């Protein structure tokens, strides 16, 4: 809403509306100008209310005054219009309270639709609309390095989607030379162990440069953030604490500044506490600290581990900054070899935060919107029927002098009153289910804590209720409006118009239900497709435990290898345990890493990137990864013996097609680790994440490539919990300062984002689709039942004349089937036309799956039949004498 020139421009539509409602001429223009002026003042005030929302809320009351009271009109207008509205509302309440059952059903149905939309909107509001806690969010960008080539053996899409981290040298070049940024900072996600009286806990840590805090522009709540001198090698060890950690673990100790906290066993002096709600790079970080010396001093341009964030300098656009970074990075690449085949790309930081959750949120919102539409159609239908049944009452009122305008207004008022009551119930229901619902959402919701019923959400619910009221009241009001005076009393309107309007609603409901049901089935199918893909390892009866050695114990490679070998050997020897092993990178446990590497091929050495995991000898057995050729890694592959590697099938196929991979060599290109390793075996591919394809990977033994972090995996058929306890104790027997958490491997998979979002989509869609189908049944039933009631006389005559019962049954069932088929056809067209706009990650198997669409069509046909069965049966039981007498 704000342009760089400082000129304030309110939402165009709102201003147009105001211009329309205000009186003509300079008086009206001055009203619009006043609103502009106040809008500028609101922008300057830095209020938390989003400017466009503020403007709408400001303008609407003026518009209402303008329309109903007539700005500048005669003074008598006010009491007349107000009096009319009050009278209509009261009359509506009285009429509705006369049939409490029907009214409650209407209110409940509307509440269902409005509550769903309100819940979905409050999530959208918190995640996508509420501005983040840092200033000028549009200026904050993430700077990422992407490959421009695809290394051999990697799926194209995977490479295109993965940025890769930046080494400190590259970051410093960017920081020193780029002119487009006011501040630039780098950071790396880490964990810290911290000892509490209840045992060691693992803290979410971020090692960052001071520039990252300057880029965010958020001050510490207490003390300060990091300083530039703390970025230097040999600088002091300091820590900035997250508000959550400070409150939860340190009991909001106000004297914490200056105290030293042991993090990973190393004292860090606390210099600041950040405000709660500060989310960098994500919510819930416990500790920020400068990069440790060995990371700052990383000697090469390969093997990066930093992510970069920057704030655009004043007046610099994203495009200009991108242009500079592209040129700068290309020059660095030409000057230094290490940057070959990569490019720097800028992304809006805010966009990065919401991108992951947007498809899920929007799916939820649109599905909820469809359910609302269906419930409106349902209610409109119901009100239409009621209006028809009240023809006589309305006709008498007309005869007594009530104008068509008044009667139409009354019908709309009734619908509005119903919708507002429904909206009230909906808001209460939404408030009740919102918090538990958000905690089950699979995607990390930006600003999850901000989800709630706030003024924006209330306004939304109010607008939706009014819209629903108008939508449902319009049909009966329109009908009254069009009927000629007196005709209401004479007959009950023409049969044709009445059932046509009703049928339109019923068909619409079936069509919407078709859309939702196919969405639900398609997402369920995608979910099953992903879950049934062979991951390449066994997941049953597997317990996993992440172990990270304290900093002091990390550097002695032999000791690290000994620790993990002994730990897994001890666990493997336990009764009930059939195998135990550990790996630095394990599927579904989070990160993947692709260090630079070289492979010996027929044409010489090829520089590439490979996935690498350093494992203990028991890992393949514990994970159930099968050996294809050669031999596995064994305890005999020690530090002093021939360096060996085991590769996966994808790597073997990619680099040595039609050749024997055994005896070939490859190596890592990392500082301090570039020894050639001989391939001794080939194992099956595994998938590291949901829906991912396998990539080239090799395994090394922990003895020959000691890494201080491992995930220990135990295959145990004992489910008494004793094994889990033994795993914890095995670690604590050597060090009590290592935090551990044991989970099942199944549990790890179920927590992975791909799994949870696919499951969430299919579940949410299933719930909403069921609601839609139920509402559609009610809709079809209502129409068919009404038809039967209206045709009592005709059916009575048919029975009296000896018409067959099956004939009557068939004619009613056909009516229901016809409605259903029309709805299905329309729904099919909608699905086919809109399917390609749906998010491919939620609908992997496409949206034009004939089998699924056929199933949905059949399902709705049966539903249509079922809905007309009861009225059809009733039609056959009509007593001709009574039917004929009642007319």
């Amino acid at each position, binding site marked *: 809403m704000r342009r760089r020139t400082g000129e304030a421009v309110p939402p165009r539509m709102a201003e147009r509306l105001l211009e329309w409602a205000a009186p003509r001429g300079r008086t009206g223009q*001055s009203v619009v100008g006043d609103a*502009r002026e106040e809008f500028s003042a609101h922008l300057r005030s830095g209020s938390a209310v989003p400017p466009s929302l503020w403007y709408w809320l400001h303008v609407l009351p003026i518009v209402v*005054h303008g329309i109903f009271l007539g*700005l500048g009109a005669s003074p008598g207008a006010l009491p007349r219009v107000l009096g009319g509205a009050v009278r209509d509302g009261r009359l509506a309440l009285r009429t509705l309270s006369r049939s409490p059952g029907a009214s409650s059903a209407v209110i409940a149905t509307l509440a269902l639709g409005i509550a769903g939309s309100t819940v979905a909107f409050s999530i959208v509001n918190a995640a996508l609309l509420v501005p983040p806690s840092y200033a000028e969010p549009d200026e904050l960008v993430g700077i990422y390095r992407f490959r421009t080539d695809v290394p051999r053996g990697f799926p194209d899409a995977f490479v295109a989607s993965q940025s890769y981290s930046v080494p400190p040298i590259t970051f410093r070049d960017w920081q020193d030379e780029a002119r487009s940024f006011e501040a630039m900072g780098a950071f790396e996600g880490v964990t810290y162990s911290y000892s509490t009286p209840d045992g060691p806990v693992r803290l979410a840590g971020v090692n960052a440069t001071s520039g990252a805090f300057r880029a965010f522009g958020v001050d510490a709540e207490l003390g300060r953030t990091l300083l530039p001198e703390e970025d230097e090698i040999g600088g002091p060890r300091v820590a900035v604490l997250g508000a959550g950690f400070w409150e939860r673990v340190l009991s909001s100790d106000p004297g914490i500044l200056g105290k030293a906290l042991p993090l990973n066993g190393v004292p860090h002096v606390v210099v600041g506490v950040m405000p709660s709600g500060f989310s960098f790079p994500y919510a819930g970080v416990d500790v920020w600290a400068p990069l440790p010396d060995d990371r700052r001093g990383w000697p090469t341009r390969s093997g990066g581990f930093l992510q970069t964030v920057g704030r655009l300098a004043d007046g610099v656009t994203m495009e200009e900054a991108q242009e500079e970074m592209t040129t700068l990075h290309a020059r660095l690449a030409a000057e230094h070899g290490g940057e070959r085949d990569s490019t720097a790309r800028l992304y809006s930081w805010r966009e990065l935060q919401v991108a992951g959750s947007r498809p899920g949120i929007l799916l939820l919102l649109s599905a909820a919107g469809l359910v609302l539409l269906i419930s409106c159609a349902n209610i409109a239908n119901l009100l239409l029927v009621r209006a028809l049944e009240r023809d006589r009452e309305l006709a008498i009122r007309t005869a007594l002098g009530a104008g068509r305008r008044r009667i139409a207004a009354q019908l709309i008022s009734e619908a509005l009153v119903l919708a507002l009551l429904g909206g009230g119930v909906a808001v209460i229901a939404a408030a009740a289910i919102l918090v538990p619902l958000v905690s089950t959402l699979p995607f990390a919701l930006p600003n999850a804590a901000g989800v709630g019923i706030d003024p924006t959400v209330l306004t939304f619910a109010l607008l939706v209720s009014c819209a629903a009221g108008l939508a449902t009241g319009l049909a009966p009001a329109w009908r009254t409006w069009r009927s000629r005076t007196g005709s209401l009393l004479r007959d009950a309107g023409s049969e044709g118009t009445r059932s046509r309007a009703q049928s339109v609603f019923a068909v619409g409901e079936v069509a919407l239900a078709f859309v939702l049901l196919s969405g639900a089935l398609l997402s369920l199918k995608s979910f099953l497709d992903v879950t049934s893909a062979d991951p390449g390892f066994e997941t049953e009866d597997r317990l996993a435990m992440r172990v990270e050695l304290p900093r002091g114990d990390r550097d002695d490679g032999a000791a690290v290898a000994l620790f993990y070998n002994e730990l897994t050997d001890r666990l493997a020897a336990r009764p009930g345990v059939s195998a135990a092993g550990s790996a630095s990178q394990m599927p579904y446990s989070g990160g993947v890493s692709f260090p630079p590497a070289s492979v010996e091929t027929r044409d010489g050495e090829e520089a590439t990137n490979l996935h690498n995991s350093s494992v203990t000898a028991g890992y393949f057995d514990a994970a159930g990864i099968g050996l294809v050729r050669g031999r596995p890694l064994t305890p005999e592959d020690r530090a002093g013996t021939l360096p060996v590697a085991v590769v996966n099938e994808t790597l073997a196929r990619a680099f040595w097609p039609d050749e024997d991979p055994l005896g070939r060599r490859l190596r890592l290109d990392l500082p301090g680790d570039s020894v050639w390793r001989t391939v001794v075996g080939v194992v099956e591919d595994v998938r590291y994440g949901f829906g991912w394809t396998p990539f080239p990977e090799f395994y090394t033994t922990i003895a020959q490539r000691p890494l201080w972090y491992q995930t220990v995996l135990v295959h145990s058929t004992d489910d008494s919990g004793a094994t889990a306890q033994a795993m914890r104790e095995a670690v604590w027997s050597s060090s009590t300062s290592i935090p551990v958490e044991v989970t099942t491997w199944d549990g790890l998979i179920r927590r992975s984002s791909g799994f949870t979002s696919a499951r969430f989509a299919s579940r949410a869609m299933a719930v909403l689709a069921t609601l839609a189908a139920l509402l559609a049944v009610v809709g079809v039933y209502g129409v068919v039942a009404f038809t039967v009631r209206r045709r009592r006389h005709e059916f009575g005559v048919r029975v009296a004349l000896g018409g067959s019962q099956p004939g009557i049954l068939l004619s009613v069932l056909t009516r229901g089937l016809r409605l259903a088929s029309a709805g299905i056809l329309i729904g099919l067209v909608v699905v086919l036309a809109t399917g390609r706009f749906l998010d491919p990650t939620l609908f992997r198997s496409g949206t034009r799956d004939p089998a699924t669409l056929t199933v949905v069509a059949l399902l709705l046909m049966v539903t249509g039949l079922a809905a007309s069965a009861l009225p059809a049966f009733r039609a056959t039981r009509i007593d001709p004498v009574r039917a004929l007498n009642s007319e």
Partner: protein
Amino acid sequence: MGKSYLGELEQMVLLAVLRLGEEAFAVAVMGELDREAGRKVSRGSLYKTLDRLREKGLVRWRTEDGTPERGGKPRRLFTVTPAGIEALRESREVLLNLWDGVLGTLGGEER
């Protein structure tokens, strides 16, 4: 036709316009009412009241050309007419007469 008395909001708006002098624009009047009287008036009621006061001949306005901040839209500067001042004075007298001797009952203090 009987004598017409000023409504409470009408009095307040007239007083605010008087206090603001050369600065009596609609937005300023609203700010003045909020600041000095603690009264949050909706824009609709304010415009309505100003219209009514003009119809009664108690205020008049002239329009000035707009600033960029107002998107170039004109603004109205309100002034109280002699009739308006007379109406205010009458209202004040009527109220003072009625208040006379009531403060003791209400527990207030004479100033």
